[in-house]
């Protein structure tokens, strides 16, 4: 065959593959988002309807009345536990990562091995003991009961990622700052931390996603007051088909921030996974 024809065929084949990949990736999510804006009478119609007048009635139902109270509370709980876990994790992990990457204390290598090692621990191993401990403290069904395990699980990954980012910064910069009269801490705060901002962003994203998406801890450790969005979504009884519209609405509320984040800070995510996973 003519080489130019082969090249053209190849081009179409690649195009087809890419389109298939996009469809397979996006369709399940697009479909549930679409369901959330369908009028109740056609949300679960058969055959499925692709064209309709969009409505926000399911969002309205969720946000009003008793259902709305539960969802509103879950939304606030999700944001609070995610936000606080993120901040506490960074406050704990950054100093540790700085120490391990720059100050190289004796025994540091063993600590790094320990940090990588605990990442192998399946979170579900911690659920039963933490459940008993929190019960005896009387803090089950509080945001604290969720923030504690989220911080514990995020610190190893966050420390590991930040070590990578700190190692990539030129050492001369902070030395220059210190010779100019800054102390270690001041140099860290004014020179290192601003330079490591992309790393901080990537690290916060991963910490945040862990908390925002978690079901393993939030399902058993919360009942009423501290429930988060994944718990609400997993509890909705939908076999009858009545609630699919509202379920779509909850799912959409959970997906949209993540999709926006993905596109705005895509480079940080890629960098984060590359440093957090590829390097070990």
């Amino acid at each position: 065959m003519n080489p130019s024809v082969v090249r053209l065929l190849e081009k179409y084949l690649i195009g087809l593959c890419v389109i298939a990949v996009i469809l397979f990736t996006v369709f399940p999510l697009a479909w549930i988002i679409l369901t959330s804006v369908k009028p109740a009478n056609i949300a679960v119609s058969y055959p499925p309807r692709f064209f309709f007048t969009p409505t926000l009635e399911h969002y309205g139902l969720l946000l009003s009345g008793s259902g709305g109270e539960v969802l509103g509370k879950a939304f606030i709980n999700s944001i609070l536990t995610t936000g606080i876990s993120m901040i506490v994790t960074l406050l704990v992990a950054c100093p540790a990562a700085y120490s391990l990457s720059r100050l190289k204390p004796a025994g540091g290598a063993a600590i790094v091995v320990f940090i990588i090692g605990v990442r192998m621990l399946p979170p579900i191993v911690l659920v039963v003991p933490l459940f008993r401990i929190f019960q005896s403290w009387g803090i089950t069904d509080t945001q604290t009961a969720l923030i504690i395990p989220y911080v514990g699980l995020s610190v190893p990954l966050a420390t590991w990622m930040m070590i990578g980012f700190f190692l990539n910064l030129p050492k001369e910069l902070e030395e220059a700052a210190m010779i100019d009269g800054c102390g270690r801490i001041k140099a860290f705060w004014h020179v290192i931390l601003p330079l490591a901002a992309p790393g901080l962003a990537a690290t916060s994203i991963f910490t945040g996603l862990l908390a925002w998406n978690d079901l393993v801890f939030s399902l058993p450790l919360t009942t009423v007051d501290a429930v988060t969005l994944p718990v609400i979504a997993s509890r909705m009884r939908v076999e009858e088909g009545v609630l699919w519209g509202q379920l779509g609405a909850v799912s959409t509320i959970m997906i949209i921030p993540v999709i926006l984040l993905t596109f705005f800070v895509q480079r940080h995510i890629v960098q984060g996974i590359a440093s957090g996973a590829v390097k070990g």
Partner: protein
Amino acid sequence: MIIASRTVVPKASSRRRTRRLLSSDNSLPYLLLVPALIALGCILVVPLIYNIWLSFHEYNLLRPARNTFVGFGNYLKVIQDPAHVSSLFLTVRFTAITVLAEVILGTSLALLLNLPFPGNHFVRTLVLVPMLISEVVAGLSWRLIYHTEFGLLNYLIGLFGLSPQVWLGPDLALPSVMIVEIWQHTPFVTLIMLAGLQTVPRELLESSMMDGASRWQRFRYVVLPLITPILLLALVFRTMFTLRVFAPVWVLTGGGPADSTLVIGVDIYRAAFRYYNLGIAATLSIILLAVTLAITLVYMRLLRREALT
């Protein structure tokens, strides 16, 4: 003179201070590590030890009076109970199949996205979305698609004249759940493999092309050996995380129907929070941890051999 000596003295002391700080032979490095070590110790290590302790006790919240030390009694009970044994084997099978599919699909996808085409950057970002969203949402989205009466999948196969299936019924539930798992986590492999493909030197590919190597030969003999360590790493991570799978199974089937999708993660949750048998739940989670460690160690050995050759 007095003024001059005054200006000299602080300078000398500050220089000394700078040197001391630079040599960092003080306690600062250790102080900075304290919060992280306390967090890891209290939140990960102490509960782990407590879990091991629980696994050696009969510990049922419904019968608190009978909480006694039973040695390896719980472990014996677990390996003699066909339900737990089959959940363990199911988990291993589930992991093997999904991880293999993720690695094959993920690598192919990485090779595809590594080609230049318009909108490449956008597509690379788009394919990341499934791995970043909640497993609960992934499970729910697919449950809507799998729905027997008004699901999209039955509608689509109906267009080709096929009769509707009960996708989450006893026969098809396991493969249906596996597809969701593969859909959600293939992007992770793709992302890592894309990073790996960047490390393949362009000159090497060009020179092999000059030598007349076909596309497949170039992949098999040039690219593949170079990316094998990264492929193994993706394999380690996906294996580690799939063995503990919980949320998608919980949302899609809850482990049913008739335990046909009862992976160990769901089994642990059920033992603890439906039967309140914390002793058995702790035992099952220690077994999960042991399996995870064993498989990871095997991979690590492979990785090291790979690094040596």
